[in-house]
């Protein structure tokens, strides 16, 4: 079923919309959430919450592309739960590892307040993404947006895990230089 038909089902307030959404994008959403939370049960709950969030948002929203919209909700909910969990104990998923990589690259006691506003930060990140080759851009997004493991990225891109690891190291270095030049990291 195509996205526009699923959205029409949401507008008609048909519960079939949720089933179709789950059939079509359930695996992607679950994988994304699991990478962050490292817990099957938590991931399933987050995905269900995301479906509920989608139900509450459509209508009036008519997102296009639907998948990006859905993934964004899943990621936000998963990160919220991750942070809540982390206040109690450390998580052990891919997100934790990916996050630690970023901390090593970008760690700074300074916050964006008075430095870079978040909207400006988003723009800078998009500009940085545009400087990368499509393949490297996908590597960055899969690692730090989707929290994929090296193995998952390797399978997706056809690169070796080692190659993925080395490329990401270079990308982080480029990222750090990029922000240093713009005063985002001190």
């Amino acid at each position, binding site marked *: 079923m195509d996205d526009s038909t699923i959205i029409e089902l949401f507008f008609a307030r048909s519960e079939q919309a949720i089933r179709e959404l789950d059939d079509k994008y359930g695996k992607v959403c679950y994988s994304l959430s699991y990478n962050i939370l*490292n817990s*099957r049960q938590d991931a399933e709950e987050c995905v269900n919450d995301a479906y509920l969030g989608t139900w509450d948002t459509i209508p009036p929203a008519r997102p296009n*592309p639907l*998948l*990006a*919209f859905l*993934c*964004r909700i899943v*990621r*936000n909910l998963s*990160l919220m739960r991750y942070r809540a969990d982390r206040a109690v104990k450390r998580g*052990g*998923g*891919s997100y934790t*590892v990916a*996050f630690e*990589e*970023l*901390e*090593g690259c*970008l760690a*700074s*006691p*300074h916050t*964006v307040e008075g*430095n870079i506003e*978040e909207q400006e*930060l*988003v723009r800078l*990140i*998009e500009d940085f*993404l545009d400087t*990368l*080759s*499509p*393949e490297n*851009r*996908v590597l960055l*997004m*899969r690692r*730090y*947006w989707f929290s994929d*493991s*090296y*193995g*998952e990225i390797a399978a*997706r*891109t*056809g*690169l070796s895990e*080692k*190659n993925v*690891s*080395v*490329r990401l*190291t*270079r990308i*982080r*270095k480029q990222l750090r230089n990029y*922000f240093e030049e713009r005063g985002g990291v001190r």
Partner: protein
Amino acid sequence: MNAEQFSSALGKVNDKYIMEAITYERKKKSGWLKWGAMAACFGLIVTVAMAALPGLLKGPGGVAPPPNPNLGPGVSDTVPQKTINVVDLSQSNPGEFAGDMYRPKGFNDNIGSALALKISITDDINYKYSVLVRTPLESTLEQVLNNANKSLNVTINATDAISVNISGAFDAYNGYYYFLTAEQIFALAENGARCFYVGSGQGDYEDINWDTKDGISTFCELNGDMYILAGESIEAHPDIGVLPDKGSAPTEYPDTIIVPGFDLDEPSEPNTP
């Protein structure tokens, strides 16, 4: 900025980046390129082996040419770790092998990346590299050697070359296999000859490490400048086509500059279900 803020901001980038990451499909490598490169390398190995080892083939009575006394890794295990000053070509490079390559700065672009890397990490100026020399189509080997010998006062004899007969799609190339010092290589490159490293094939891919001399050397030995043999379309390949500092092409052994190493210490991956 910290990682938390970055992660949060990354979550708000435009949908197009998310969709690109979801829908990305790996490019299929050109079959002819892959097999062409492999065939060419195999052909080169066979040809060089035939030329260099007639004694072995003929038995005890045969006379083999003297082996390269320096053939081997050429770097010391005891040398402290350092990283050469390099330019990253991976951004503009569609190839998988050379996509991994760093090219040292300051080398004439007639010198292949692997050869330049090998020269950069080898401290012995008398070390002789196994080199495939390709002369310009409009020049003979003698003309190139003559000019090289004049310009830099080095001596390279045409008779020292082991002629390499590259067949099939590569007929247009006149290749000559040599053992040459860095100085001789620079002289040839300055005079239009393209010089490529023929790796020994020794080593293990797992030992490639861009932070150590031995790790870089392993890369050179395993891959050499194999792409140069893959066909005409490779002519534009940045692996051999990029010269970062055109104005400063070296006529002497280039400096090896210590720069901060790449951070390859990755946190370990968690187990996935």
